[in-house]
């Protein structure tokens, strides 16, 4: 096939290059403005280390919760033929498209001191969730769980349902089938769902600042610390941003082969 002249393809090439520039220029700028020599000192600052530690802790907790409750939900959604299932699936996707700040407000209405659940919790158990590390985990789970469930459900739907029936005839209960057949067989899907959910939790900003606040060492996660540092200490903000960029690239690398071709 003869190639069309260059000018004929310009109509496609120009917007395509613009798109690439839109994505790449900011990232390059971040790398260019970084003070590479001072990087270790920046990362050792008292505002940086606790934020990173908190982010690591809360996102790990989020991931565990997603796996524990999200995997069974994904399996039920994947295999249910009930007529409410499509509605339930739509419901799961809502936090995916909801502005995170709205999610934070909703969390306050539910678990705040005056909240629907929160007021009872405070009265009965004396627990107050908002503005604690637990609230950070709530916020992160709220935004990350849909990513996890949808990714895992997708791979579970690809699993031949005859495997379920066969395992049942062999004497396996639904729980045993889930644990010893389904989960191992969709392990790659679970891994990519976990990576997506974790990346989403790491970047969580709006719901966290609304529901958990911005207390250094307690609820100030890495993205919040970046935002705060940008005013007073831009180099610390850049250093933290680069750490998160590195992590994102590593996550993308872990998904390679599934999403990159």
């Amino acid at each position, binding site marked *: 096939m003869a190639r069309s002249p260059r000018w004929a393809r310009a109509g496609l090439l120009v917007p395509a290059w613009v798109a690439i520039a839109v994505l790449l220029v900011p990232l390059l700028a971040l790398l260019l403005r970084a003070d590479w020599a001072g990087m270790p000192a920046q990362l050792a600052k008292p505002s940086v280390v606790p934020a990173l530690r908190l982010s690591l802790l809360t996102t790990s907790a989020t991931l565990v919760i997603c796996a524990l409750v999200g995997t069974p939900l994904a399996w039920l959604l994947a295999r249910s033929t009930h007529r409410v299932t499509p509605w339930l699936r739509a419901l799961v996707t809502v936090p995916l498209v909801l502005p995170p700040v709205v999610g934070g407000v909703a969390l306050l209405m539910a678990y705040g001191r005056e909240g629907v659940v929160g007021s009872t919790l405070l009265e009965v158990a004396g627990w107050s969730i908002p503005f604690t590390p637990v609230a950070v985990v709530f916020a992160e789970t709220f935004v990350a769980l849909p990513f996890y469930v949808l990714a895992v459900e997708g791979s579970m739907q690809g699993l*031949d349902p*005859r*495997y379920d*029936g*066969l*395992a*049942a*005839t*062999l*004497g*396996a*209960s639904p729980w*045993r089938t889930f644990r*010893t*057949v389904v989960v*191992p*067989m969709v*392990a790659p899907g679970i891994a990519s769902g976990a990576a997506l959910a974790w990346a989403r939790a790491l970047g969580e900003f709006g719901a966290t600042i609304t529901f958990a606040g911005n207390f250094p060492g307690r609820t100030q996660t890495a993205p919040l610390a970046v935002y705060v540092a940008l005013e007073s200490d831009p180099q610390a903000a850049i250093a933290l941003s680069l750490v998160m960029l590195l992590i994102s690239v590593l996550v993308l690398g872990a998904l390679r082969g599934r999403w990159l071709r």
Partner: protein
Amino acid sequence: MSLKADITLTRGLLQLGIELSAQPGQIVAVLGPNGSGKTTLLHTLAGLIRCRQGRIQVAGALWDCPAEKVWMAPEHRRTGLVLADHLLFPHLSVVDNVAFGPRSRGVPRAGARSRARAELVALGLGGRLEDRPRELSSGQAQRVALARALATDPALLLLDEPLSALDPTTRAQTRADLGVRLRAFDGITILVTHDPLDALSLADQLVFIDAGRLVQQGTPREVIARPRDPYVAHVVGLNFLRGERIDGRQVDVAGTTVVAPEVPPVAAVCVTIAPSAVALYQARPHGSPRNTWPVTVSDILLIGQTARVSLTGPFALVAEVTTAAVADLQLGVGQDLWATVKATEVHVYPA
């Protein structure tokens, strides 16, 4: 340990209504065209589909009976299922695949693995215990699937076209292995197949179903001698005609008289003629047998030294002739011929 099943259900366009019974040690082959309900029947016995009406009773235990509100979940039934695709668990070794059933039924790990090992050794797979399923050939994988189904000591072994996905050479060998293993199995085997050779070489009871209904059942010998349905006759390789008795020697088939040595004294009769008993001539033979009909060749299929010639005429017939005869008669599709059948080769019995 006997099976008594009476199953009624609707699934899509299929209306299934089948009664089935079998004794321990029996191998029952279920045959029928695609979509006739064979697989649905098997899945209902396994508990993957529920009856709408009827009852399934195995070894004295009630498995499914909507009228009495009894339904046993598949994991509590004693069945073993083998499908056309082996569907081995890809993340488990061969021995762990086979041990999966006993493990699920509460046998401790060591016991389950030794049971699995014994089952695999019996099927000649003692050297592949720690392999992954993807390292096996299709025939080996299917034998592992059989071992996995048998390792739970099922009362009902359900085989759904177990050989259909194998290539011809592997199929013959696997069929032989399957035969040996099934004869040592003391439960009931239900074998769904559309390959007559599977049914005739493995089963001691044949059940033919069509459109969800039982068409005929009996031992292979009975079915070969007296098919009662065109599909059954096709499976056992006979020409099958329905007719009406004229007298003790003659039958009216679609307006044409067919002469037989003997016609039973009932109005409606079935007529079978072996394809090898049909002789073909280019010109009407003189002093010929009384069963002589003008026919037209509609298809020719060569199988080794013989040819199966499909014919249209007063009724459809298949003639089996030698390849030499094909050359001598210069047979071709659309050619007009004369077919004759000796009266002694015509078999007539009540419909």
